[in-house]
């Protein structure tokens, strides 16, 4: 069996995905919303954001344990490290309610993004 075709194929696939992944736009100035996680709760637990615009969500975790920001409605998921801060881009959203949770402390860490 000649190993050459598999190898060039492999490189070709790698290149194709590299090109696709590299073709992104530069980040523009987007409205920013800040959330804080404290004692496994989001503060504020309810935020109103403009509909039809991409939103930059900045989440700061003041707890000593990791949290995972998760929202099926927003189709987003990201770990927030202990005493750390993350940024996540969502939308542009249609008007409506978009609940989110801290997946590691679901009972207390609940919030909702309201797009108007």
């Amino acid at each position, binding site marked *: *069996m*000649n*190993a*050459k*075709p*598999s190898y*060039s*194929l*492999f490189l*070709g*696939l*790698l290149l*194709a*995905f590299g090109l*696709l*992944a590299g*073709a*992104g*736009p530069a*980040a523009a100035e*987007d409205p920013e919303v800040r959330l804080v996680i404290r004692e*496994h709760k989001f503060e504020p637990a309810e935020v109103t954001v403009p509909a039809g615009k*991409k939103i*930059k969500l900045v989440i700061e975790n003041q707890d*000593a*344990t*990791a*949290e*995972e920001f998760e929202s*099926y*409605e927003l*189709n*987003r998921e*990201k*770990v*927030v*490290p*202990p*005493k*750390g*801060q*993350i*940024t*996540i*881009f*969502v*939308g*542009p*959203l*249609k008007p409506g309610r978009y609940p989110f949770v801290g*997946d*590691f*402390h*679901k*009972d207390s860490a609940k919030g909702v993004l309201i797009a108007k």
Partner: protein
Amino acid sequence: MAGIAVLVFREVLEAALIISVVFAATRGVPGRSRWIGAGILTGVLGAVAVALSAGVIAEAAAGMGQELFNATVLFAAVVMIGWHAIWMATHGRQLAMQMQTIGSEVSVGQRPLAALLIVVAIAVLREGSEVVLFLFAQSAGGSGWVDVAGGMALGIAGGCATGLALYFGLLRIPIRHFFTATNWLLLLLAAGMASQAARFLVQADFLPSLGPQLWDSSSVLSDRSILGQTLHALIGYDARPAGIQILFYIVTGALIAIGMRLWGKPGKGAPRTA
């Protein structure tokens, strides 16, 4: 304990389903258990390492380290799966014929098992690192040792049982069609991973969404349900996909399908030059 078990189950399920497809796709290959076992072990060690460096990864690349990390390992898995699927298209027929006549394990020369080791390791690493972080958080939050250990055991057992069920279900496919079926499964698996990678890049604002939400099928099949999560892991089901996810899905699927057709024609050897 139930909460812990449910979260662990969800993460283990995704990895277990991927491993089942890989295990099925390597049916009849000597030494595959060792390769896949090594992949799982590498993945577990990697998961702990990733969990321990969660802070470093999160801060890397101007706060977009997680997205870049996830997208990179997903694309690596896509390339490995694609490579294997195309390789199988040229050798699967031969393998199936040998298995029909000999009915036991056969060797058809070198197979890219190392590629699948990486796929398995990546699947375990991605899901496992979340489990590890979660368990850290649980034990730091005062959950008892019994709750954590019990929840983990239940979750892992449930996830593995579902994976085994899929594996034995796949084994019922007649051997003539077996590798065609597993090859299509690999194609869909890779396409789904490419779509997930695209979602991470949109989340980091590195890629345009091309429509933030093309449709919402969550009322028909929620991605929270077991079926939704199973289909998410296997074929990349997403109830609210962005446009670019669909683009990545289709392009990946098409590239692999074209590769299988180009290299997988019956009676034709692999071309000498690329």
